[in-house]
Structure formats: C-alpha cells, structure tokens
C-alpha cells in the first residue's frame, strides 16, 4: 500500500440476491396461504367442506388451547422484557406444574374429592395452588442457580444455559417419575357436558374461565401494585431503576415467579383438558407459547395473551382450512409444523409482533 492518494481498490459484493430471495419467500408464502384459502372457499361453496358444527368445534378447541399458550407466553414475555433473553426452560416449568397437577389430583381422587360440585371445585383449587407453588419454586430455583450468575453475559449465553436446563429438567423428570405418560383422573360427568348455545364442553369453559381470571389477576398485579410498577421500571432500565431505590434482584425474581405461577396454572389446565402428562409435555407448548409471545410482541403482556389465542386458533383451523383444501392428506399431523411455520412467517413479516414489542432500549435491535 503506497501512501499517497490511493483510490480504493476493487469492491465485490452485493446482497441484493438475499433480499430478492426473501421477497420471493414472502410472496410464495402469501400465495400458498391465498390459494389454500381460495380452495377452501370453493370447497365450502361446493357444499363439500366443513359443517358449521365442525368449524365451531375447531374454534372452541383452538381458543381453549390458545388460552394455555397465552398463559405460558406471559412468562417468556415478562422475562424477555426484563432480562432480554429467551428462557427456554419455561416450557419445563409448565411441565412441572402439569406433573404436580397429576400427583395432587390423583391423590385427591383416591380420597374421593374428585367428584360432586363443591368438592370438585375445592379439589381443583387445591390442585391449582399446589401447581402454582411447584412451578414458582422451580422457576425461582432455576433463576438462582442457572441465570443469576450470567446476568451480565451476552444474551446467547443464558439462552444456551436455559436450553441445558430444559434438557436437564425433561430428563430428570423422566428419570424421577418414569417415562410412561401419566393419566389424570376423569373429571366428574357434569364437567364433560356441553353448555351454552355454543355447546362448549364444561372443561373448556373451565379452562377459559381460569385463564381469564389468572390473566386479570396478573394485570392487576402488574398495573396496580408497587411490585408491578417496579417490574415495569426494571424492564425499562435496570440501572435507573436501581438508582430509584428499586431492589432489582428481587424484582427479577418476582418476574420469574409470576411467570412461573402462570405456567403452573396452564399446566393444570393442560392436564384437565388432555388428561395426559409426561416429562415431554413441556416441549411443544413451550415453543408454541414462545411463538405466541412473538406474535403478540415480546414484552407486551396483553399481546402475549392475544398471541396465544391467535396461535391456538390458527393451529387448529389452518390445517383444515388451508392445507386440506390443497389436497394434502392427514393434515392433522402437520398441526405442529403449522405452529412452527407461523413463527417463521411472523418473524419474516413482522418481527416486532402484531401489537408491538416492549423492550428495554438495550434489547431492541
């Protein structure tokens, strides 16, 4: 390199083809969905599509599953909002709640509490409280052991750690309780009857009601209590929050705990709805709940809940409404693939979520 007056030498590169490729993928995805929908409409018009009852069934199933995704998503959302990393082990916290639900409900069943109306409601409350305690303790323990030492490290480090925690917990529960899927006792008959003009099953109504109550409780907690305000302050800026006299450490633990409690509730609901839980129960709902959080905008609690409902709906409806009309057989096998595809698509089209992210300045990127 001779010193004076060099003209920059040759330049190679252009990533325009990457952008073109991306656009092609976006258009392809839109076209695929569009054609599927069109085929569906034609099918319906031709009178060989889904009956009204079937569609209502899909909606109800979707919404009640989505409510659980939403509840789990809150935990992802809050932790990401405050610490800026994906707590991959959150699905396993949910699973811990579900497992505890299995144990307590079986014990209560054996003692004749799982029947009647008053008794059942009381039993359910006990199950819920214990699951919340178990999940909360699990998440606090995880935070203390695995995440707190990594507070200052680059965000991929706690993410990898949380993958390890998740893997560990899955296999620990597998070892502790055995690999067989656990069956919860059947709820009393009045629970499986159908109610209201929509003819929704009792368990599903229960799931929706409990989810709504939990969500409302969380909202009051975050918006109306001092601790909730502290949480929001810490999410905004940890250092300034500390200067304002907020105990950042405690607030972070509270955030984890509240998220864990919601996951515990979701765990019990999952058990009620599907009556089967195992060590692997947490994996798929965990990822889907994360998807829900992204759909709603990470850090945005209302968004997470809405994202959950939306994802539940899409996952239940899309295979039959988009894939089946395209002539794809056995679409129900692709339900999980649809959920993953939704994650990819939302990140391709609107990475900040439908309702906007609420993140600390340093985490926006």
């Amino acid at each position: 390199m001779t010193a004076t007056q060099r003209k920059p030498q040759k330049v190679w590169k252009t990533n325009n083809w990457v952008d073109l490729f991306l656009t092609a993928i976006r258009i392809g995805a839109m076209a695929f969905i569009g054609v599927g929908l069109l085929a569906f409409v034609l099918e319906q018009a031709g009178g060989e599509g889904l009956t009204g009852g079937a569609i209502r069934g899909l909606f109800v199933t979707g919404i009640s599953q989505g409510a659980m995704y939403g509840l789990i998503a809150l935990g992802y959302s809050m932790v990401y909002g405050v610490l800026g990393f994906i707590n991959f082990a959150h699905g396993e916290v949910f699973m811990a709640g579900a497992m505890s639900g299995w144990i307590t409900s079986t014990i209560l069943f054996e003692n004749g509490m799982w029947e009647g109306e008053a008794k059942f409601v009381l039993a359910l409350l006990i199950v819920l409280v214990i699951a919340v305690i178990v999940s909360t303790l699990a998440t606090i323990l995880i935070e203390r052991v695995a995440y707190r030492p990594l507070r200052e490290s680059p965000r991929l480090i706690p993410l990898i750690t949380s993958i390890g925690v998740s893997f560990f917990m899955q296999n620990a529960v597998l070892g502790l309780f055995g690999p067989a899927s656990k069956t919860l006792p059947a709820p009393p008959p009045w629970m499986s009857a159908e109610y209201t003009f929509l003819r929704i099953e009792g368990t599903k109504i229960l799931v929706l009601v409990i989810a709504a109550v939990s969500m409302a409780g969380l909202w009051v907690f975050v918006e109306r209590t001092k601790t909730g305000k502290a949480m929001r302050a810490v999410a905004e800026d940890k250092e300034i929050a500390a200067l304002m006299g907020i105990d950042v450490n405690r607030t972070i633990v509270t955030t984890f705990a509240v998220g864990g409690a919601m996951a515990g509730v979701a765990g019990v609901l999952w058990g009620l709805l599907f009556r089967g839980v195992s060590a692997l129960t947490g994996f798929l709902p965990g990822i889907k709940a994360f998807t829900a959080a992204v759909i709603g905008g990470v850090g945005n609690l209302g968004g997470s809940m809405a994202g959950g409902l939306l994802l539940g709906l899409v996952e239940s409806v899309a295979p039959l409404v988009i894939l089946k009309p395209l002539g794809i057989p056995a679409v129900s096998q692709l339900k999980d693939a649809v959920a993953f595809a939704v994650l990819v698509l939302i990140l391709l089209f609107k990475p900040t979520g439908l309702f906007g992210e609420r993140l600390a300045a340093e985490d926006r990127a």
Partner: protein
Amino acid sequence: MSRSATDIDAKRSTYIGLIAGSTVVFMGLVGIGVGLNERMLIDPILSLGYLFVLTVPFVAGFVAANEVVLEGMEEPEKGSRDLLAGGIAGLAGGLVVGLFLVVLNRFDLSEWMPRWGDQLLDLFSFRQGVGLGIVISLVVGAVLGAFGGGIHVLKPEAKRLLTIVGVSVLTLAILEAVVDDFLGEIGLKSLARLLYASGGGLAFVPALIVVAIATALALGFKGKGTELKNQYDAMDEGEQKKYNTYMMFATIATAIILPIFLGKIVNELLANIGLFVLLALGLNIVVGRAGILDIGYVAFFAVGAYAMAVLTTPEAPWRLNDTFANTAFSWLPVLPWLVALPIVVVLTGFVGLLIGTPVIRMRGDYLAIVTLGFGEIIRLLFLSDWLSPTLGGSQGIRNIPGVDIGIAEVNGTDPRAVFWLVAVFVALAIYISHQLETSRIGRAWMAIREDEPVAEAMGINTVTTKLFAFVTGAVLASFSGAIFAAKVGSTFPNSFLLLVSIIILVVVIVGGMGNIPGVIVGAVVLIGILGGPKQPGLLAEFSEFKLLIYGALLVFMMLKRPEGLIPNAARTRELHLEEALQDAWLKGEKPGSDDDEAVATA
C-alpha cells in the same frame, strides 16, 4: 492475621454439604445409583453407581475447603482446617442421605417414583439396613469429605501423582471393551482374562498392579511433558511445521492401522464417533466461528441422509408406489453412493441456503428458536403421510445400499470399513474447516462473532458471510448424513430428533467453541463414553441417563467454563502476558520512552 486450625466457615461447609446430600438423593431417585450399579469398575470394591454417588461428598469436601482468597488478604495456611471444612460438608451430606433413608423406609412413594424402593435403600445403606445405614452414610460422608478437603493440603507433586493414578485406573476400567477387544484380536485373550473379572470390571489385583505401574511411570517421567513442550516452543517455525507434519502422519497411520486390531463393537463405536465428529466440526463453524446459534442443525443431517436414501435405494417408496412422485422423477436412475454424494451435498447446501436466508438477519436468540422450528418442520414433513409416498413417512426408507467402492461394498455389517470411510470424510472436514478458518472468510466469521455491527462497519458483508458459514455447516452435516444412511441402511424420522442437535451443541461447547482439536476431543470423549442419541458409548449403562448428563454438562459449562474444557492453548498462554511486558519491551528497544520523544517534538 493468623487463624487457628479450627477457624472455618462452618455455615458455608454445611450449606455445600446439604446441596451435595440432596444431589446424592436426587441421583438415587433418578436411578443413576441403582442403574449404574450393574457395571463394575474395580471388581469387588467399586461399581459405576457407587463411583457416581461417592464422588459427590468428595467433591463437596473439596469445594468446601476451597476458600476464595481475596486479593491482598493473607492466604490461609493449608492444614487441618481444610480437612475439617471438607469433613463438615461430607457430614452434612451424609445427614441428608441418612434422613432420606428414614423417609425411604417409612413411606412408600413407588406409585409415583419407580425408583423408590428397597434397591435404593440397599444402595444407600450398603445393604446394612436403615439404622446402620445412617451411621455408615454419616461416616462415609465425613471421611470422603475430609479426603476431598485434604486434597488442598497435598503438595502439587502428590496431587499430580494422585490424579495420574486415579485417571489411569479409571481409564482402564472404562476402556474395558476396547482393551478386551484389542487384546483378543492380537491373540492375548488370556491377558484380558487376567486383567478383567468375569462379571466385568478391573479385577482387584491387576488394579493394584496398574496403580503401581502408573505410580512408577508418573515418578519416572516427572517433568518430561513440560520439557517436551518447552523443546517444541523453542523450535523455530520451520521445525515446528516439520514436527507437526510428523504428528499428522502418525495420527493418520494410527487411524488406518488401529481398526485392524479392533473388533466389531469398538469399530462400530469409532464409526459412530466419526459421524459425530463430522457433525460437530460442521456446527463448530456455525456456532463456534461465526457465532450463529443454530439449534436445528440436525435438519441438515436428516436432509443428507434422506437425500442419499432417496437417490440410492432401488426399493425406495417412491419407486414402488404409483404416485405423482413416481411419474415426475421416474426417469431418475438408481445412483451409486459416490455419484449421489455430490447431488446430496448440493441439495443439502441448497436447503441450508433456503433455511438460512430468512433467518440470517434475525436477532441471535430468535434465530436459535427459528432454526429449531425449521428442524422440527423438516422432521414432521419426513414423518407425514403427505410426503410418505416419497419419503416413507414413519416407516422411513429401508434397504439403503452401502457404499460401493469397487473392491467392496461398505455398509453397516463391516464397521471397520465404515470407520475408514468416515475417517476419510473427517479428514476432509478438518481440512475444509482449517483452511477456511485461517482464511479471509474465517477472519470475517470471527469478527462477526465478536461484534457484528462493527464487523459490518469494517466492510464485511455480514449477511453473505454468515450465510456462507451456515451453508458450509450444512454441507459438513450432509457428509455425515450420507454416510449414516449407507451405514445404518435405513432412515427414520425419529433418528433426527431435536436432541441430536443439542448433543452436538454440547460436544462443541465442551470441546471449546471454534477450536478444531478441542471439538474432536470433545466428540471422542463424550460420544465415546456416554454415547450418541441412540448409539451406546463405552459405558452402555449410561444410556438411560446420558441425556440428563448432557443437559447438566451444558449448564455447567456455560456457568463455569464457557470457553470449553480444552481452551485454545495459544490464547491461554497469551492471556497471561501482561501489558507491562510490552512496556518493558518497548523500553528495551528504544532507550527513552517514545512519549518523551513526542513531547520533545510537540
């Protein structure tokens, strides 16, 4: 400030002990103790199960006595205090186990936990019943804890000796299958019979002999290692290069010759290790070099295997069914493996591009989850009825032919040949990784890993450079997948679960991200001992618990040694060079500091 011999932090020791005790109980309940008890290491005295359980109080004692000495504080003198601290920790641990024995005896939770029961009781009480068992666990805990603490009291030479002896005995015990096999093949079966007990495990007397030999060797070769290393460091660049070449040839020769003296089982193990080395090298480029956390890496392994299966299998589902796929592709002939390989590689590379392009601009953590999503999507598609006319659905593709190399067909029935085949590709992968890493592209990967926005501001096209890493990783995985298909002779969606990705990630992290030799050693040790997702390792008894251990290992590594167990030697050495060194050097070079000079001219 001097402290008396009993002045210790009893609270901390107790705390550590309680954690250790709970760990032991946890291990028992998960089944590690009982499950691993079948495997003897040293015939009547030590089983793998006990080794695991007993290591805990020992380590607890070691940790409890390992005081953090603050800078400027007088380092406390080593002595009985360490023993005491360790002992207390061990005792506390023993107490937890003792209490657990009572609970175990009193209540029956076997309805919930399958491991709850008499076997566990026998294990923890050394078959002596609850009463005596409690006493024993207290004593054993305290003694082992004290031993652990006592390590600090030992002189460095003694520590070294102890380590060498311990490691040699354990290695010989763990390598039982290999040694047995090797001795059998070279006609020394009788020696193997002497060495190992009939029920497995190093026999007691030979174990003592091994201890004696190891001690003798350790004392005899004291300091020789450092000497060699110093010699190597003293060589100039050319000589070092020559030396490295010799080492390389020696390694290659070993890789060629060793399998001849090894039997089926061990060669099978080596071949499996090789497949994972390939995968780990690929992921090492993606995660270790370019800093892209891809946890759906298994997808490329799967695509490689399936592509090979579809192209080379005469009875592939789509050749048999009368379907759309059949009519569209029926002109495609059945290809031999070697001809199909380039197609497989290009195809997998293309899939890498297809997956990589949308994700490469995402935030690192989102990218991780989305790659996971893609990995699962691909597996679910392989599993689906939709594509089953082409890919076989849950039935997979069977009867995949081996690799026809003219003189013979390499397939799963001859693991030795498979190993050689794998070894060729491992060599190729090492070559590719090394050449790329030390080139312009490799430097750009590193810069992106270190600070992506700055790398971009320094003129690096981060998007294409990262994509290139992603695709290179995919290509290396496709090698592994292609060999895997030919070796196993069938591909099923369930061979490509997420846990494969995670195990490879653990291997890369344990080996030290971005460090080729480290990653290879990591794969050999982890896959060799614990085993792969479906493949057993040397300690086949681990199969039930290996995933648990992989998970724990991942957490431990991130918390304690994110740079890997075998960090880059050159880098560590440099870590110890202080800035002061530079100033001294500058002063030596140029009398009068250059700062003075600057002032003079200012």
